Structures are given as structure tokens and as C-alpha cells.
């Protein structure tokens, strides 16, 4: 019987086998990239808000403490989103006619809540607690990034599980003294700029981190990685 395929078919077959392999690997890689991309995680995206609230202006510009608005950050899992009343504390005095603030005034006038778009939105099966993080020396900036420099708020970190675990596996690398948690200008210890903790000067983050772990009784990595820490 005559050869059905020409001899060159072998080459095509081999090439296509390799190509399929490469293609599959590429697709896998693409999928991997995609699910970590801002398209999926919303990292860095500034959703539209009823009022273009600027953390930059209020925090860096005016020096308002985080806790003035996010009142329950130290006492509850939920940091708290300020009621309209909090806005009106000042804005009944200043910028009283600014058109940009009309939704706020309308909300106060009509006793109807402002409907913001959630920027940091964890899946419903994750039970994150601000309370314990803030009380154990995790700074706002560690997760929320340079929020004091954001004219419009965006999500700094990916908020994916691997990102959470990075710290839970190695808490020493991010801890800072409790009184520095809300300090937006806090600098990690460095040879030139040491950080004082309990009377001791630290120039390396890891040294400081270990000292804080001990002083605050931070649970060990194997405990913090256990599923029930965040899922229940």
C-alpha cells in the first residue's frame, strides 16, 4: 500500500506536538496571570463613588486621624464606614455650598444613606478582623498602602489568599509598635532611622519584629496559617 502521508508529515507531527505543549503551557500561564491580574482582583482600580472623596486631602492635607471616621477599627472586625453625620460635622461649617458635596447634604437632609462602592471586598467565606491586626501592630499602611496619598481610593494589595499568607507565615517582617499603627509617615527601621520599642532601638525590621512578636504574644506561623484563623 502506498504511503498515505508524505515523509514530511513526521516533522509536522513532531512540531505540532511541541506546539500543543507550548500552547497548553502558555494557556496555563495566561490563566495564572489572569487570575492574579487587577482585572480579577480589582487591585489598583478606582471604582466610581457618589462623592469623589480624597483620603489624600483629608489625611495628608488636614491631618485627620484614621479613627475619626473608621471608629470601630480597634474594637471590631469591621473598621466602620463613617455615617453622613461624620461628614457633616465639618461640612455643615465649611464648603457648605460646594456642588460636589450635594449628595452628602442630600443624604443628611433626607435621612437617606449614601451608597458607596466597596473598595476592599473580601469573599464572604473570609472572616477578617481589623481589631486583632490593629491591636497587634499591623499598620494601616501595611495592607492599605499609601492611602494618605490617594486622591481617589483604590485597593493597594491583591487581597488574595497568598497575599494574606505572606504575612501570616512571617509576621515579624511587617510588625510595628502599636502606637505607630495609625502613623502614615512611619518608616521601617533602618540603620539611619532606628525605631524605638520598649526603650530599645532597632535598626532592622526582623529584630524589631521578633521583639514585638514576643512582647505582644503573637501566635506562631503554624497557628496563624491554620484554616480556622480566617475561615469558619
Amino acid at each position, binding site marked *: 500500500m502506498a504511503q498515505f502521508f508524505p515523509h514530511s508529515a513526521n516533522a509536522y507531527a513532531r512540531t505540532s506536538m511541541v506546539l500543543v505543549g507550548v500552547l497548553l503551557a502558555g494557556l496555563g500561564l495566561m490563566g495564572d496571570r489572569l487570575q492574579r491580574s487587577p*482585572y*480579577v482582583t*480589582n487591585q489598583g482600580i478606582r*471604582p466610581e463613588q457618589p462623592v469623589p472623596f480624597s483620603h489624600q486631602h483629608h489625611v495628608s492635607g488636614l491631618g485627620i486621624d484614621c479613627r475619626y471616621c473608621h*471608629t*470601630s477599627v480597634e*474594637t*471590631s*472586625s*469591621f473598621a*466602620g*464606614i*463613617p*455615617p*453622613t*453625620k461624620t461628614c457633616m460635622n465639618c461640612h455643615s461649617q465649611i464648603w457648605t455650598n460646594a456642588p460636589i458635596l450635594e449628595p452628602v447634604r442630600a*443624604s*443628611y437632609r433626607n*435621612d*437617606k*444613606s*449614601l*451608597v*458607596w*462602592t*466597596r473598595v476592599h*471586598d473580601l*469573599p*464572604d*467565606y473570609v*472572616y477578617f*478582623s481589623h*481589631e*486583632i491586626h490593629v*491591636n*497587634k501592630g499591623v499598620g494601616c499602611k501595611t495592607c492599605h498602602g499609601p492611602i494618605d496619598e490617594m486622591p481617589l481610593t483604590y485597593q493597594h494589595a491583591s487581597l488574595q489568599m497568598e497575599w494574606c499568607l505572606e504575612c501570616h507565615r512571617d509576621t515579624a517582617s511587617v510588625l510595628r509598635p502599636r502606637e505607630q499603627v495609625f502613623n502614615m509617615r512611619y518608616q521601617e527601621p533602618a540603620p539611619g532611622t532606628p525605631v524605638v520599642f520598649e526603650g530599645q532601638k532597632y535598626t532592622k525590621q526582623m529584630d524589631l519584629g521578633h521583639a514585638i512578636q514576643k512582647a*505582644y*504574644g503573637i*501566635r506562631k506561623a*503554624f*497557628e496563624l496559617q*491554620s*484554616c*480556622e*484563623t480566617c*475561615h*469558619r
Partner: protein
Amino acid sequence: MAQDSENDLVRIQTTKKDLGLTAEHAREKLSGARGPQYWRSLQELTEDPEFDAMMEREFPRHASEWTDPVSRRGFLKLMSASMALAGLSACTKQPFEPIVPYVQQPEELIPGKPIYFATARPTPNGAYPLLVRSHEFRPVKIEGNPDHPASKSIPQGSYPAELRWGVTDAQSQASVLDLYNPERSQNVTFRGDTRTWGTFVGAIRDAFGAERGRGGAGLRILTDTVTSPTLAAQIKSVLQANPQAKWYQWDAMNRDNARTGAKLAFGQYVDAQYRLAEADVVVSLDADFLSGSHFPGFLAMSRDFISKRKLDLAGGEGEAAKMNRLYVIESQASTTGGKADDRLPMRACDVEQFAGALANALGVGGSNGTVKDDHAKTFLNALVKDLQATRGRSVIIPGEQQSPTVHALAAAMNSTLGNAGKTVLYTEPVEIVPTEQAAGLKELVADMNAGKVTLLVMIGVNPVFDAPSDLKFADAFEKVALRAHVGIYHDETSRLSHWHVPMTHYLESWSDTRAYDGTVSIVQPLIEPLYNGRSAHEVVAVFSENPGVTAYDAVQSYWKAQNKGATFEPFWNRALHDGFMPNTASPARPASARPAASALAPVNDELEIVFRPDPTIHDGRYINNGWLQELSKPITKLTWDNAAIMSFNTAKQLGVKDEDVVTLELNGAKVDAPVLVVPGHPDKTITAHYGYGRTTVGSVGTGTGFNAFLLRTAERSNYAAGVKVTAKSGERWRLALTQHHHLIETKKWKEDVVGSSQVGNEAASRDLVRSATFEEWRRTPGFANEGEHQAPSRDLTLYGEDGYKSWVDDPAKNAAHQWGMAIDMNSCIGCNACVVACQSENNIPVVGKEQVLAGREMLWLRIDTYFTTPNTNDVSNPRAFFQPIPCMQCENAPCEPVCPVGATVHSPEGLNNMVYNRCVGTRYCSNNCPYKVRRFNFLLFADFDTESYKSRNNPDVTVRSRGVMEKCTYCVQRITSARIHAEKETRKVRDGEIVTACQQTCPTDAITFGDITDKNSRVTRMKSNERNYTLLAELNTRPRTSYVAEIRNPNPEIAVTPEDHGHTS
């Protein structure tokens, strides 16, 4: 697989045996026994092949198969569509979600933190004091009030003051579901058309205006039993202004007998309050005081009763140990009878005779009953001897459903024995105006028939459904010109009424109420009325000079009038904060009972029917509550139905078996009912629970059970002789019984390890439940752990250094806390409160009768009931044992290594974590769980759609979706929140700081939870008890949940031998 099951099914049908034969078979099996045998049902005892097949399977037959009425083709279509959609949905990203702050945030609210409010759940028997957990002002979880004398828990002394908790009952736990039920009536209606409250008030005021001229002669108000001082005062003032008007109270489960009995004994209405903490001998004359809230003072009574059985508490260990003794003479099979040290089942009418004989023997003049058979005589003589020896430390409790004569006799006996003022106090009744309700209702019906009633207002009652059938209430009802009904649901009565007004739930409206001991609580609302409800106070105010008064104003002005002066504000705030007004308990009346002169009812020998309120849905008022419907009733383990409950012998005589349909006929009234044979039920009597068989109620309750009210008459409302039973051949009524679900396999093991599964092999039969008598325990305190079936050595593991040993012995891999639980079988009374508490706390869905039949019920905590017949082979009078089974949280958990996706993993604190978002539903874990505690979401059981139910869910617990395995977590959300609280203060979690939902609600403190590494924790102390043992220890699972073996204290003089035992018939 499917083929197999079909064959199995055929086999079951052909192996169905005649029950009478089975009972004899059982006796035969037991006659070779050498020690106590524990069994869950007759089928187990007789080694029924059906039962064995069930034991071998992970779930009952068909649980894992597609049995819904959808064709194979339809199924494939559905699946392909859902697969396609699932694929698509994976490609969409999480949408942006809104976040909505307050305009003005309430000052006391910390978002994300619950707030607790004190309130009370009013019931006709007295209020249940509560502390309700509210998340963002949504009541989510009911707890007991820790300060209230009626609901404080036992360990008050052993914990610091800030770590106390209060206890509750199953109905209170479930009441929060009723609040959110979207099927509650939502609008004022006139002949079914929606109207406003204003129109209602106008219409009623017009009709009332016409009556006023003649002193309100045509006005009748019908309420349920009123325990609210304010409401009673409001109604009284209406009656004062309209002297011809009349007020009646009606509850199907009323206390007429107790009232009439009190009149006989004392010449006045009194409430008997039992102080069981002072009683060494407790005698129940058909009083089911351990079953639940249908018995007045249930919480305090069960707490006090069990406090005398806690051998490691006040009683003291070793020689100093003391224990009370419970004698139960009863006409049904109840948990009280199951817990009894000595139990005598008899027909309800015979109880009166027994009481007469007992009174006579104790020297109370006036009556003498006859006790027929020898065993009852032995029982009576031993009981008399015991009572004579414990004068002033004993108590005789008459059952609510027993005749007035029994109540009067019990009062006289308590006086004669010197118990009055010590173990029993007589106080003014809990209802503000005590009446004999059936007589009142009769009068009302007569007035209606005579055309005297022109305006009838019914508040919180459903007489068309639950009035005695011989009164023909519905017929008389039609003759009333204007009928207004106020109720939470549209019901049988509202359907026949002109006006219907939706009523508020107790969590929605202000009121006040009294607990069983008279202590007054303010009923504080936690939420605005969800469905335009109006409270009873507002409705009654329509008839006053001031029709616009709110419930809050009514309650506050009443108490202002009671507390004149400037001190009102602090008094009011204190009452709201504490949940009760201190020192308002009714004082004891010095009462001396006269010997009852009334003659005993003549003895009859006919078949008897006993009417009782349902153990879960009460008189039908909770029928639309899915939690209570799906709750297995104690002893019978029946869900979603009621049944004609009878004994083996009676069933044999009638020629019927389980699930047969019979027609019950009494006084010409007929009703069809399914048969259920229950171990321990007396012969020649049938128990029918009323409350089921409703026609107009929401989708949960409609069509469940049969209506026993059809047979119940005013004269014979508790039991009646002469019921005719005819079997309807060929008809079956499937009963969703859970007694055979989630069986722990012991038989196979017995065969493999012990070499024999024969009942009678002591070693094989003493594994899951272990108990001894008080005397045996005195001789061998370590009885629970005797024998060779102990856990193998820790080194015995296939996994070597990587296995469980690798972490359990390595401090570097262990967290600071190791959680464990000990369950005291001696304390568990099987009341089910923990089961509902768990359901409420952990967002456990309701699955429905069909799914329960398939074995797919989702409850994480179940109460396994075992029976045993000590010293006798007679299965008609067994003892019952209640064993709550949560997840064992095994250190060496069999479920963990078999999970292919690591969805169930061990935590460093010893919890067996279940990670829902990893689970792919292979069900290998549940297959490998020897304790059968894992539950699988075969279908989408959780309700994600109903808006109101979203608010009911506990926000701290994930709502599980279809295809996910779940199980008890030891309330990990509570552990986490306590741990965070402790960590903030850089300290360890204190003992008692974490209370699991089941532990918190338990009226008898049977469950202890804590850190087993802490030498001083209560759980460690419980576990170091010699009676402590673990289930299936020989499997080397090393469970963290352990059990403390039960001790019974039977009177040695009532030992029954097989030969001399006779039946009461």
C-alpha cells in the same frame, strides 16, 4: 448501585415482620443476656436485616441517590445546563458591591459587634427570661438571662461573676425563626381584602359605640392566658367601663385541672412551685417536667433536679456522694420516664387509682384507690417506704394533664409528708386572672349561640382550630355579627373572621410578663415590627378612652402607677437592663391542703386515648416553624408529624404496625392517624399529640400530621376511654423517624474484635452507653473503663513520624490551648434545647420531611436515644439514655486522611476544621467517620433568596451551599472571638470564656467545654472523673469529646424479675 438499592427495597418489603412476633423475638434475645443491653430500637434488638443494612450504609437508603420526580433525561438536561452556567460564572469576576453607612449612627452600636438585650418570651405557663443577641439591631440568637432566678445556669458558683450564662428551652431558641417568617400575616384585612389599621379602629369603634349604651353587653374579648400585668389592667379597665362585657382566656393546653385541684385542696387558686434542689425523693404522677417548656417552671425544675444528681458537684465524691431518686408513674413514654430511677407505666385513668392508693398508704384520709397487678403493688410499697423515710425532703408532682383529684391528692400528700413550704411552695397563680378556661369557653359559646354576642375580639388565639370539638365553636362563631381576630398568622380562626389584624412577635413589641415564679419582666422589643404588626396592648386600647395609646406608653404608664415618685426612671432602666424586676416573685402562701373528699373516677378497662401537647410544636402555635418541625421529638424521634403512639402489645392486639393508618373514633368523631410503636409506652392506651393537622397556616405547617383536637372534648380533654381503632388496610403513612439515622456501627466491630455479636456478650454491649446503679458505682467507681476495649497505644500508627503522633506529642506544633468537651450523661435530659441552639447559631438549614425520610437532615448535633431493660427481658418498660453526639473532634481523625482536597484538616488547637470553600463533595470523609457526624448538602438547602431570612443568619458563620460537607465546629466562631478578645489583652483564654451554643443553652449544664491542657479547667476536671469514657476508643481515633457515664439510683426493693413481671392489662 441503583439496581442494588432496588433489590434492597424489595427485601425490606418482604422482610417486614409482624410486630407482636418481633416483641417476643426481642424478649427471647434478651433472655440470654448477662448484663445491661443498650439498644436503639426493636429492630436493632432483634437483628432485623433491614436494620443491619442501614447500619452498614453511611446514610439510610437512597440518601445519596436521585429520587426526586425528575426523569433521567430531565436530570441530564438540568445538569448540562448547570454545568454550562457554572463554567460561565467562573469567567465573571466578583462585581463591585455597595456599602451603606448610617446617616446618624446609633451611639451604642459598634458595627460588627453584637449587642445583647434582655427581654422575655411570654408563654401561658409563665415567661422565659432571655438575653437576645442582636447583630446590627437584628435579633439573631436567643440565650437565657443569666441573672434571672428562672434561667440561671448551674455552674453559677464555680465561675467568676462575669462568666455566667443563662439557659433556655428549645421553643425559645426557635422563636427567632418565627420572627422573620415571611408567611406571617402582613396586613389588616376585612373579609380578605387589605385595609389600614385606621379603618379597623374606625369600624370597631363604631360597633363598640353601639354597645356602649348597654354596658358593652355584646362585647366579648377572648385572649390566650394573660401573664402581662399591663394587659390584664387594660382589659379590666375596659370591663369596668363596660360592666356587661366579658373577657375569657383560652389555651388548648390550659391548667384547668391544676386550678380545679387547687380549689379542691385549698379552696383557692394557687400555683405549686417545686423546689427540687431540696428534694431527695421526687415522685411524678404523670408529670412530664423534664421534657420542655410545656411544663410550668421547666428550666428551674430540670436544673434543680439535676443539681442533685451531679455526683461531682455539691453531692461530693466517694462516701459523701448523694443522689436523689425519681419515681415516675406515667401514661406515655416521656423523657421524664426515661430518666426515672424507677418507672411504672400505666394508663392515664389508672394513675388516679394509684394516687388514691398512695394517699391512703401515706395516711391521707378520704380516698383509696385500687392497684391491680403485683408489680405495681411492690412499686407502691417501696415508694411509700421511701417517702416515709424522707419526710420533708420528698415531693409529689401531679401531671398537668392529670385529673383535679390527682392534683388535690398530691397536695394533700405533700402536706401530710411535711413537704409543703419546703420542697413545694404554694403561691398565687402566674396568670393575672386565673380562670377555669374550658368552662369559660363553654359560656362564651352558649352566649354566641344565644345571639348575645355582637362583637368578638380574639387576641392570639385560634379557637376554631383548638376549641373542644363538642362545643362546635365554628358554628356558634358564625352567629356573631362582628368578629375580629388578632394573630401572628392567618389561621383557621382568621379565615372565618371579618377582621384580621397582624400581631407583633414578642421581639417586636413592648409588653410585660411574669415568669413561672411571678417575677416580672419587661418584654423589650429588639426590632421594629417587620410586618405592620400590632400588639395586644394597642388592640385593647381601641376599646378605651384613649385608642391611640402605644404599647410602650401602656406598659410604662402602668409601671409608673405602680412606682410613684421620682425613682421611676432608675427603676425602669434597671428593669430593662436586668431583664426583670427584683423581688417581684410571688410570695409563698401558707397553705394547708385539705384531704380531698372527691370520689375517684370508676375503673374501666376500655382502650384509652391520651391527649398531650406536642413536644415540639406545642398546641399548634409553632407548627409553621421549620426548626421545631424538623426537631426529633424526644423518645419517639419523630419529625414533621404526630402519630397514634402505642405499645408493642397494644399494636399487636390491634393488628397494626408502624406507619399503618388507623381510624381513631371517639364519640362519633373520626380521624385518620399513623401508628407509631414506642418502647416504654403503657398498654391499652394511645397517646395523641395535638397541634398538628392544621389547614390554614404557612407552607411549613400545612398538611403535616393529623388533628387530634377533633377527638378532644371539653369534659374529657386530657384522656378518654372508649376510643375505637380500625386499621385502614393497605394505607401507609410514611413517618420521618430519625432514630435509625446516623447509626454508629458497633456490630461489625463486635464480630471482628470480640468474635460475637450476640446480644448478651457483656464486652460487646457496653461500648457506647455505659451506666451503673448508684450502688454499683459505689463498689466500682471505675466501671465505665473496665474491660479490655481501651484505646491502643499512641505509638500504634501507620504514619509514623508524619502521622498524628507528629503533632500531638510535640509542643512546638501545639497551640497554647487544646479544646475538648465532656458531656455528662447523668445530666442530659434529652430536652433538645441544645439541638435548636446549634441550628440557630450555625445557620443550619431545614430540609423538609421528604429529605428527612432520605436521611439528609442537616442538624450537626443529634441526641441518640438508647434503651435498656435492667434485670428483665421485658421491652415494655425500658430505661432511656440520651447521648448528644456532636463532632468528636478526633485527634487521630479518620476523616482527614481521606479528603483528596485537604478540605478537612487539623488545627493546632485540636479542632477538626472543615473548610467549605475547599470542599468538592466527594463525601469520603463522612464515609470514613465512625461517629456519623458529618452532614452533606445534597441539595441547595440553605435559603439564599428569602430576604427576611438573610437577616436571621448568624453573620459570623458561613451559609453553606449545595455540594458541601459540614459538621460541628465546636462553635469555632465563638472560640475565635474569645481568642481575639484574650489576645488583645495579651493573655490566655480564661476557663469559661468560651461557651459553645449547645453548652450555653443546656438547662442542666450537661455539656462542658474548655481547654484540656489547663489543669484547673472545668472540662479537665470532668474528664478526670473516673466515669469519663470516649466512644469507640478502640479505633484509636482519640476523640476530644468524651462522655461521663450515667448513674441511676433505683430502689433495690423494686427489682423486677422476668418471672413476676405482669402487664397492667
